[in-house]
């Protein structure tokens, strides 16, 4: 009766994939709504976008992609039996997640200093919703990475890594659309 299905071939954990697909749907819909509302006021959106700190965001992209790389290495090392190295890589990945949050926090503080809030312009409503929701996932990701650095079964690292790469992927989608799209 329990014949093998495509689902059984998924690496890691089925529920994590349900979560990942759900998250991608949410961020995808958020970006689609952002682009839709942007059509109604291209000049206002361009003006608002100029207030963003593009260099900081570009730096954050490098930070997060590097962190994702470390998480991927951790799994490879764990599977190769290098437990200590894998743990260090996971802690390093989590630390880079914290660096991302610090840079992000500085960015938010800069906005607040300019008197910019979520209701200043529709652009900023989406900016805060999307990057804020993403940052919340970074916080969750840091916690998860630390958890699997502690309980370091290869399966755990794989599942945590899947989540962390999703957070990475979402940022790589948010960054060009929100910060760069002219």
């Amino acid at each position, binding site marked *: 009766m*329990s014949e093998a299905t495509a689902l059984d071939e998924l690496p890691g954990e*089925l529920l994590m994939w*349900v979560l990942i697909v*759900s998250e991608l749907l*949410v961020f995808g819909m*958020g970006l689609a709504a952002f682009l839709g509302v942007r059509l109604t006021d291209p000049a206002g959106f361009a003006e608002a976008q100029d207030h963003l700190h593009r260099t900081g965001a570009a730096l954050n992209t490098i930070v997060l992609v590097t962190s994702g790389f470390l998480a991927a290495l951790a799994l490879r090392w764990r599977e190769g039996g290098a437990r200590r190295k894998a743990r260090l890589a996971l802690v390093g990945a989590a630390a880079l997640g914290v660096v991302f949050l610090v840079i992000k926090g500085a960015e938010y503080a800069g906005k607040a200093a300019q008197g910019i809030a979520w*209701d200043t312009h529709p652009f900023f409503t989406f900016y805060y*919703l999307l990057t804020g929701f993403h940052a919340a996932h970074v916080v969750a990701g840091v916690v998860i990475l630390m958890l699997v650095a502690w309980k370091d079964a290869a399966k755990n690292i794989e599942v945590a890594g899947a989540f962390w790469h999703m957070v990475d992927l979402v940022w790589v989608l948010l960054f060009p659309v929100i910060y760069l799209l002219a």
Partner: protein
Amino acid sequence: MKYETQKIAFVYFAVAMALFAVQVLGGLLAGWIYVSPNTLSEVLPFNIVRMLHTNSLVVWLILGFFGAAYFLIPEEAEREIHSPTLAYIQLAILVLGTLGVVVTYTFDLFQGNWLLGKEGREFIEQPKWVKAGIVVAALIFLYNITMTVLKGKKTAITNILLLGLWGLALLFLFSFYNPGNLALDKQYWWYIVHLWVEGVWELIMASILAYLMLKLTGVDREIVEKWLYVIVAAALFSGILGTGHHYYWIGTPGYWQWIGSIFSSLEVIPFFAMMAFAFVMVWKGRRDHPNKAALLWSLGCATLAFFGAGVWGFLHTLHGVNYYTHGTQITAAHGHLAFFGAYVCLNIAIFSYAMPILRNRDPYNQVLNMASFWLMTSGMVFMTFVLTFAGTVQTHLQRVLGDYFMDVQDQIAIFYWMRFGAGVVVILGVLLFLYAIWVPRKEVIEPGAADKVAAE
């Protein structure tokens, strides 16, 4: 019946069905007031009739859930319920509270009294003593079933059911907070109603449906459990922040419009998954269970929930649409089909499955029961269509053209007449169902193949 204490479910189901009858009769009266607005306007005002209609719905559905838990947990946990006495005390408290509410609402007794009077809110306005009683009953219930599960076998079905029932009870605690600010009042009571029907009740629904599929189709438990977890994950992911779709126009900040629109759009996914689950299980299943009526109600539940909660919900959940349709008959259309499909059909499915077992007899009157399904469903679906048309016309006249509310109501009177007719059909279906369940006759589908023991 494998376990003696499953018998507790019998009285819960009986009280639930009695309240069900009261609830639909209240609905019929409310439907009549729509076409003849002065009916009983002094004795029993419309707002009270409406409150009785919705509150008795919620109460009988919850009684059905309690009964379902007492019925299926012994089988799943493979042991008797911890304390049958407590279970009966719990029911007695709930019945007393329900009677107290009905009498207090109808005669407006103890007006303004902190403990005994109704609270003057739109929905969660039970007198404080009733709310306290509900909490005591809920604590007794949670203690009773949790002890049973802890001492017995733990399955995915009981885990999810317990999670849903704990959530149901804990979220009700918000009803004790009654802020003076109307916007806050609404914000908090959605924590109860929304997080119930679009959150924890979905867990209860998925687990009861999973139990029924297990029994009726004979599919492997492992497959059922995988579906169950995916459905529950999708329901909680979309439903919790989906609460935002109630915060568009009540005075909460504007970012809720996007949070609510995006997350509540995804609420259709768990309902679609439940429908797919039910049908896939039946296709894969190799058991030819004699209780066809229970199977029909289970499939009907999953299908109508998808349309009523999923499709009709999505219809007006985007804030750009809801800006126009908010509080029109569109909402009433969605509310009727969603509650009927998701939770009424679910309860009737478990009643249809469990009652013959509880009374230790073959599933009699299957044809009548199935006829009642088609009567109730066609009545309810017709009502949904009629109210959707009424809501569309109302939205255009009132919200687009700006006509006055009562002028618009006069213009859509024809729809209210048709809704009343649809209501009569639903009532006939309900009466037929109660007859089929309670009045024994000798008719069984495929006599001989009928096997009253629903072995797994």
